[in-house]
């Protein structure tokens, strides 16, 4: 009896073990069989929700319908940081997708991950796809290209910030709705008028406070964010924005916050509703927010280039981009990379790009797509949508406005946000806050440098 029970339990335990192993093998065999028969599957992890997510599904299914060798499967992985974390975790366990969309602040981290990433220029070369990096907008690709001009990731959804302003509010305050402020001096003046006449409770807000008030602010004023050309020339860069015009800007913002000229609306795009609901008359945000504002605002609004300090510069240099690019993971077969190359080629064709640009407000990444959109009469029919492109392409970018390349920048941006909140709430002076931000951010740069030696 005793023996029987023992044997039975042992068998049960063994069975459980076998079952768990066996089913895994069956699954693998199944998918291998499917692969042998059907098209080769390419997985693409992305972070686009809502209408943009549906657009991605459409792009993939159009590509799949255009040929029968490969099948691109897009999978939404949540927010940008969720997607990146998921991709990294997947790589660590050997389950990485082929393509992953990574936001621009993750660029430094991805670039440093040499054994994990297959550079796009390699993928394209090996895949035999026609590929000409100079067809791409320089201000966009500059972000994702090595010093030697090799493109490491595929720019996909890039945007640049612009000013949005409420035309109805301008008119109600007796201001010219077709003449938005061009300088920070005017932004202040106009805000005072708008608030004094009781049209809005505060003049302006901003989304993405670090992207707008530190990174783009520096670029359009042509001042450096750090040493080593904003990190492009080496991992040993040190931040400088506690010694530049950024300090004055934050002094003003803190002062304006008290006077209701400026109203802080939170991190990322949390400030959006302040503008939608008419609480403020101006906001700064991604050009890709255009369709969202169009949907949510029951007033007419316009777009305009980012303002500059007329006391400091004669005009704006150029703004820098945000958004995301597509990275290719190591560890897949040559056949599969061929599919990736084919898909990237399709993705950057003028038709697909022009459609994507017009639908989402993201920048077209090639000159051909820009020209096609012009030819289609899109900008004439939708005034204000070209502002972002003009702002990006009018001036040749300098070392200060080419973009930025720092490791751990997602965390650094959080640090800047932290200190900005401390400054705007009056807890710290602008100088103190930015000094602390630079100190903490430099520590992270040094850690990143050590970890990636």
């Amino acid at each position, binding site marked *: 009896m*005793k023996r029987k*029970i*023992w044997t039975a*339990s*042992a068998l049960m*335990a063994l069975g*459980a073990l076998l079952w768990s192993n066996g089913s895994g093998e069956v699954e693998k065999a199944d998918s291998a069989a499917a692969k042998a028969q059907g098209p080769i599957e390419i997985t693409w992890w992305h972070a686009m929700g809502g209408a943009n997510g549906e657009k991605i599904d459409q792009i993939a299914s159009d590509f799949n319908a255009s040929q029968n060798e490969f099948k691109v499967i897009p999978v939404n992985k949540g927010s940008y*940081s969720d997607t990146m*974390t998921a991709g*990294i975790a997947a*790589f*660590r366990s050997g389950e990485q997708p082929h393509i992953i969309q990574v936001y621009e602040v993750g660029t430094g*981290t991805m670039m*440093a*991950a*040499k*054994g*994990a990433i297959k550079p796009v220029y390699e993928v394209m070369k090996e895949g035999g796809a026609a590929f000409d990096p100079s067809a791409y907008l320089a201000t966009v690709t500059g972000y994702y290209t090595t010093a030697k001009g090799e493109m490491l990731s595929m720019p996909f959804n890039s945007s640049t910030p612009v000013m949005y302003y409420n035309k109805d509010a301008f008119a109600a305050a007796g201001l010219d709705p077709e003449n938005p402020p061009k300088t920070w001096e005017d932004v202040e003046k106009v805000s005072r008028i708008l608030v004094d006449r009781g049209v809005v409770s505060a003049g302006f807000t901003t989304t993405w406070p670090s992207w707008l008030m530190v990174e783009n602010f520096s670029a359009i004023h042509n001042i450096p964010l750090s040493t080593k050309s904003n990190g492009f020339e080496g991992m040993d860069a040190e931040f400088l924005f506690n010694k530049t015009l950024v300090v004055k800007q934050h002094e003003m913002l803190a002062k304006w*916050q008290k006077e209701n000229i400026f109203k*802080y*609306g*939170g*991190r990322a795009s*949390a400030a959006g*509703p*302040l503008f939608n*609901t008419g*609480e403020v008359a101006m906001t700064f945000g991604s050009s890709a927010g255009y369709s969202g504002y169009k949907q949510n605002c029951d007033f007419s609004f316009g777009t305009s280039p980012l303002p500059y300090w007329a006391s400091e510069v004669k005009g704006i240099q150029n703004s820098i981009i945000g958004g995301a690019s597509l990275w290719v993971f190591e560890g897949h077969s040559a056949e599969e990379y061929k599919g990736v190359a084919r898909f990237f080629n399709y993705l950057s064709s003028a038709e697909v790009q022009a459609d994507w640009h017009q639908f989402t407000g993201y920048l077209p990444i090639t000159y051909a797509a820009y020209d096609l959109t012009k030819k289609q009469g899109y900008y004439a029919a939708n005034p204000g949508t070209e502002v972002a492109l003009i702002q990006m392409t009018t001036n040749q970018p300098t070392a200060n406005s080419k973009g930025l390349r720092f490791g*751990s920048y*997602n*965390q650094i941006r*959080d640090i800047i*946000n*932290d*200190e900005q*909140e*401390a400054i*705007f*709430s009056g*807890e710290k002076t602008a100088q103190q806050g930015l000094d602390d931000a630079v100190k903490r951010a430099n520590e992270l740069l040094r*850690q990143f440098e*050590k*970890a*990636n*030696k």
Partner: protein
Amino acid sequence: MRDKQIIYKSPVLPYLLILPELVIILLFFFWPAAQAFYQSFLREDPFGLSSTFIWFENYRYVLTDPFYLSSLKTTFFFTLWVTLFTMVSGLGLAWLVFQLKERETYQTFIIWPYALAPAVVGVIWYFIFNPTLGVLPWVLSLFGGNWDPKLLGKQAVLMVVIALSWKQISYNFLFYLAGLEGIPKSYTEAAMVAGASRSQIFFLIIRPLLAPTTFFLLTMNMLYTLFDSFGTIHNLTHGGPNHATENLVYKVYADGFIGLNLGASSAQSVIIMVMAVALTLFQFKFTDKGGRA
């Protein structure tokens, strides 16, 4: 209890019977814990391509990080206020409902919030408290109040404490009500006959008799605020503004998953693990004594 123990003749069978449970615990608790422990001594790039053994440097970094110390303080603050707030209101509500003849309706409504996931609670309160869209800021603005938890840390902390407590009040209510129902009527009746006032009955008879429940709830509430608050904080404030609502658990997430600093994040989880073990041992010891007394 001892006399009820079953004695197995074979030394192997009992172990076999608990084997499935052991496998699960080993696989989902001990293995990850061991990994975290090992990781806490490494400096590694996010992809795990290169790693260096650096002894206690992660711990040194964490323990000298001013935001870590402030998250300790925040955690303590949350725990104190949420525990106090939920227990007082849970007991108060239970006492009120206990005196009713028809309890079911009230009971159901008060228990309701407990059925919600912490993340959902976060979203609900996000909409109530949102400075632009919310109801509460609008009401406050009628009285000239300035509600801006996105910028003002103290308001954000208050907001999180309220959201965390709201859900947990149900739990406290439920246990206190059960506790009250478990007190023999004869005690309170005898006291009434002896001429005790309502408050005397409550403070001198009910309160001490509820002590085991109170102790149990005290530890449960502490554990809840320490480890279950993530979803609520994530949806309400993301730990901001300027780390004001970042507790220990949230910081592990922020450093590990957003910052991709796995070493420092692991070191923090090891510290939390030690705290959790200590708290649980403490609870075991006391409930054991309470049970025997």
